[in-house]
């Protein structure tokens, strides 16, 4: 082939490559950052915390999408002899879209549970600084703190829209993964896989009702029984207009107890949250939150009234302030107040 012909081919390729690139490949970077300030009447001290600096990437080419999120948490200063904070690959998965009904994903995920777990750390997407108890760590057995379900899992996921009729649609997510364990993201310590499932019914643009389920064998055995069967069921409701937001969730948790005790340990948590957007700028929030360890013992429940405000000059910047009135049923745990404020910015 003559040099001139080669040059013509090369120039043609160069001229058409922007077309091919625009048509087939898109790469995006998103992120968010938040700074919190907290004062508690129990500890009587205040603190700043650069809780999150998260970077998300998305690469899309026709039916294939690759998504990731890296988190730098609590200052993330890693040094050979210690340091503080954490750097973590929160999520990383590859997705193939077969149709609106079936999308397949493989990688590391946030467990699809409830209204908030898929946006668990994405503070610009929710009104308050702190999430409801359902999403936090607790000690249902009075020993080690853990969530009612695994926040993340490594494995496979299939999701999509099961059916739609008019303004009603039913979405689903099914997942299988390693489950909780000492090296849960790279090595399953037993042959029992975790299963997660979520169904979300949307009616129009305002109302959605969801059910979630997670089951696993907990390798750490919070109750002292290694590989304890655990299950959690969730029910959530959201009604969202341009000005008014109502959210409510209930989670019921059950885990096998140790051999001596036998039987199952249960816990339940629920909340109701109301918010009202004023001129799309200021949103006062009221939430009642409840957690019960289910032991029937005195002191096994925790209730909180939260009163907060969210000020958002635009869709990416949020100033949040809240006061939590924490009440415990244990006679030796005094009620206390926690003041939290934060700045949260998406980019």
């Amino acid at each position, binding site marked *: 082939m003559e040099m001139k012909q080669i040059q013509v081919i090369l120039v043609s390729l160069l001229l058409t490559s922007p077309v091919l690139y625009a048509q087939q490949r898109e790469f995006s970077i998103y992120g*968010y950052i938040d700074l919190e300030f907290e004062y508690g009447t129990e500890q009587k001290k205040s603190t700043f915390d650069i809780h999150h600096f998260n970077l998300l990437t998305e690469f899309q080419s026709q039916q294939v999408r690759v998504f990731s999120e890296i988190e730098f948490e609590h200052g993330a200063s890693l040094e050979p002899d210690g340091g503080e904070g954490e750097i973590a690959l929160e999520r990383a998965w590859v997705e193939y*879209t077969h149709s609106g009904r079936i999308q397949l994903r493989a990688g590391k995920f946030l467990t699809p549970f409830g209204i908030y777990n898929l946006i668990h750390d*994405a503070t*610009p997407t929710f009104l308050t600084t702190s999430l409801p108890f359902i999403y936090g760590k607790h000690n249902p057995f009075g020993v080690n703190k853990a969530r009612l379900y695994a926040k993340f899992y490594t494995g496979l996921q299939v999701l999509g829209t099961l059916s739609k009729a008019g303004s009603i649609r039913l979405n689903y997510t099914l997942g299988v993964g390693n489950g909780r364990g000492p090296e849960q993201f790279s090595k399953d310590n037993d042959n029992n896989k975790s299963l997660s499932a979520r169904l979300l019914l949307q009616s129009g643009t305002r109302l959605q009702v969801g059910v979630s389920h997670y089951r696993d064998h907990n390798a750490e055995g919070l109750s002292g029984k290694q590989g304890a069967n655990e299950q959690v069921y969730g029910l959530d409701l959201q009604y969202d207009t341009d000005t008014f937001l109502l959210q409510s969730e209930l989670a019921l948790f059950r885990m096998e107890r140790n051999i001596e005790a036998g039987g199952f340990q249960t816990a339940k948590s629920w909340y109701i949250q109301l918010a009202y957007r004023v001129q799309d700028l200021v949103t006062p929030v009221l939430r009642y939150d409840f957690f019960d360890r289910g032991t029937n013992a005195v002191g096994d429940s925790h209730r909180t009234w939260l009163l907060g405000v969210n000020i958002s000059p635009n869709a990416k910047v949020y100033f949040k302030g809240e006061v939590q009135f924490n009440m415990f049923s244990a006679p030796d745990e005094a009620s206390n107040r926690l003041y939290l404020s934060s700045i949260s910015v*998406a980019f």
Partner: protein
Amino acid sequence: MNIKLKIANCLLVGLFMTMLGARGGVQAQTVVVVNSANSVTNISKAQLLGFYRGDEIVWKNTSRLYPVTLRTNQAITKTFFEKGLGLNVGRAKRLWLKLALSGKTSPPKILNNAAEVVEYVSQNEGAIGFIPVEKLDERVKVITINGRAYSEKEYFLSQNTK
């Protein structure tokens, strides 16, 4: 002096009218456009809303959907979403942020002007966008919404009140 004053006045009026037009103070008819190779000729308003809410991610032929929007501070965008689809722009932006950070799907691509929308839609078979009708050219195709063309009174963004 009078002539100079007249010319100055004309310039001022012209500048004012241009600014009005640039800010969308004078609204042109908005049309929904897709890539010329896209076989779709009509969609429902509910589908269009689903595209911009991230509820729909593929076309019927299962190829990926790429919705684009003009900047949300432009009048045409506010009209398209609020009058056309019944979706408050502030709520749309919050929703798109959730789509991006949850990983559910890519949010609509935000472009600066109609020329960019035409360029992007013409280069991407799965793209859908909206532009003023006078910015239409042969590189993209107009589709009907709920079976109505943009010239019809029943069009979802009709400016024809007669």
